[in-house]
């Protein structure tokens, strides 16, 4: 029995058992994902428009030239954005949105389980549970959850992979409306297969790296590119370990401390007490 197993056994009481179960669940179920092939993106921003429409957000500005001059991030009003990068005189367009991690840090961080990973793949948010602590924003390595700072009833907004559309048997709005099939929706394993296919069949067109295959333990959204991903200001220093792992050891320690400390303190307290009353008792008994 190694240390981790031992701790898990000791700590079955509270956290440990849940964590173990979650980790197993995400391995078993085939999750859905999105493959974004940046070599195919034309920068038409159809995905931005269809996303805003499908999710009820204001229509994005149509001044593409101006917008492409700066690096944009998703916001509380736009769940996906397309950025333009000029690399070796080539214009490359890159869509950004929630990565739908296999083991999302935001969901592990959420103390009400308002943010949670569905077994189908999308990471979704439940407003009836959320208390607006914004710990999901602190934890997300991609800085995706956004908060409405100017609302008395603020929501956490992020791409939910068109969760409601999926329930109706449709596919995400951005994938459906992409004119050049730069956005492909499907089973994550199929998408990885397809991405590898494209890399092998056209080795000159792609770098040998599917961004999201291993990053932070694997993500639902995967990227293909002709240049290295640092060029897109993607974080390539995030590591391959799933982020909830960073707090696991600490959480395993909790039930151990909760059970061992009181016993230890009580014993210590009794030992100091005995010493004191012993001498008094001896005096009283006339020894």
């Amino acid at each position: 029995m190694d240390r981790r197993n031992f701790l898990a056994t000791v700590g079955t009481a509270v956290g440990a058992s849940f964590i173990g179960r979650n980790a197993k669940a995400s391995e078993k179920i085939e999750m859905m994902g999105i493959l974004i092939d940046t070599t195919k993106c034309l920068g038409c921003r159809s995905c931005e428009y269809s996303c805003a429409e499908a999710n009820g957000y204001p229509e994005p500005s149509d001044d593409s030239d101006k917008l492409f001059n700066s690096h944009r991030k998703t916001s509380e009003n736009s769940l996906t954005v397309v950025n333009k990068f000029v690399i070796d005189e080539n214009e490359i367009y890159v869509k950004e949105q929630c990565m739908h991690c296999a083991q999302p840090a935001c969901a592990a961080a959420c103390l009400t389980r308002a943010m949670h990973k569905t077994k189908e793949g999308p990471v979704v948010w439940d407003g009836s549970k959320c208390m607006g602590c914004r710990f999901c924003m602190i934890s997300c390595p991609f800085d995706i959850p956004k908060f409405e700072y100017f609302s008395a009833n603020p929501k956490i907004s992020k791409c939910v992979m068109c969760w409601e559309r999926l329930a109706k048997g449709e596919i995400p709005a951005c994938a459906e409306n992409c004119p050049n099939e730069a956005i492909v929706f499907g089973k994550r394993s199929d998408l990885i297969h397809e991405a590898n296919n494209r890399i092998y069949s056209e080795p000159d067109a792609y770098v040998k790296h599917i961004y999201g295959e291993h990053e932070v333990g694997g993500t639902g959204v995967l990227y293909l590119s002709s240049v290295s991903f640092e060029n897109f200001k993607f974080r390539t220093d995030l590591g391959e370990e799933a982020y909830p792992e960073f707090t696991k050891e600490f959480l395993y320690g909790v039930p151990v401390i909760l059970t061992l400390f009181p016993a230890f303190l009580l014993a210590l307290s009794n030992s100091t007490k005995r010493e004191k009353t012993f001498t008094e008792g001896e005096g009283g008994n006339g020894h």
Partner: protein
Amino acid sequence: MDTNKKSLSFMISELKRFFKFFFSELKPKGKVFTPFNIITGIIMLTGAVLLVIRFAFGLGTITNLSQEYPWGLWIGFDVITGVAFAGGAYVLTFIVYIMRDEKYHPIIRVTVLNGFLAYVFYAGALLLDLGRPWNVINPIIGNSFGVSSVLFLVAWHFLLYMLAEFIEFSPAAAEWLGWKKTRKVLAGLTLGAVIFGITLSTLHQSGLGALYLMAKAKIHPLWYTEFIPILFLVSSVFAGLSMVIFEGSISHKVFKHRISEEIHRSHNDIVIGLAKICAGAMFVYIFLKALVFVHGQHWTYLNSGWGLWYLVEMIVFVAIPCFIFIEGYQSKKINLIKFGAVLTLIGIILNRLNVSVIAFKWYEAVRYYPTWGEIVVTLAVISAEIWVFRWIVNRMPILSDMPDWAKRQDQIGELESVTQKSESLKWKASIT
């Protein structure tokens, strides 16, 4: 039937008596319009107005929080620093009730009260920062247990710890109200509450650090380490005790008329003792920090502005106060120790803000800095805490001697445990 009626009318008359007493005690003692009262009064009123705006129109209206910096001064200072400052309570209850070092007994009540109020006000300030505070009960009741969240753990432990601290403090309240039987029961719960409280403190002092474990890619490498929880726990020991020294020297001046002969006599001795413990804890902390630094191979980071800032934190506000404490207790220089405590407190503020705000998203072009509104609300929370603290200290036996009947109760309790012990000794003797 008749006895029921009698006991009911007795209870009603008791309740009436209680409320009459309570309301008579609500009135301020001493002058109302002192400079301190006027300034803090204005701060609290302004804070209240700001909070109305904040709850009506959103957090963005009075704070500089953004998508890049979701947590600012209210979390970084009020909660994360404030809770470290409240660490004195668990350290001292450990020394007094577990190790039974009677030397620190005179200040245990004021320290526990401070810890309790710090949690109520500073951890309570967390509510101001919540976007959807009406859902705050979700992690406590209902089916929304986010057990994989460090914050879930911290929230629960805050709550339970407040309960433990309240029980530890409650005998003083019972003495104030003259509830003799209740006091006896509450005093009997103290050891249990202390053990529970120390366990919870260990977990949530480190838990506050563990909150940042998943922010690995966002905190400057000089401050991020997987040992943040342990560093937070160790530093809460000297943060809390420095606060006890600092707060004690102020109380000594402000509450001169309430201070018991015992506290007055032992004050210097206690300060020297605390300095010794602080120096020890700081030594451990410096050692751990050095270990993390060497293992992380952080030499290259030193040659930058961030490296300089790190060295300022570690040398000026940890290493130097550590030596000041050592010099202070060796040559019994009380004022030097107090200066060391102030330096340490500044150092803790720096450290907690570095992890939570300053070195957080250190690569970001646009930095977060608090608005005047955030600062005013923070000052308002501190002011409110001081007002409540003053109200309690002026009425209950916190710094003053407990009433004679309470002392007798304690003596009888001790005697009982002694006779129990001697009886068990006799029993042991009889079987051998």
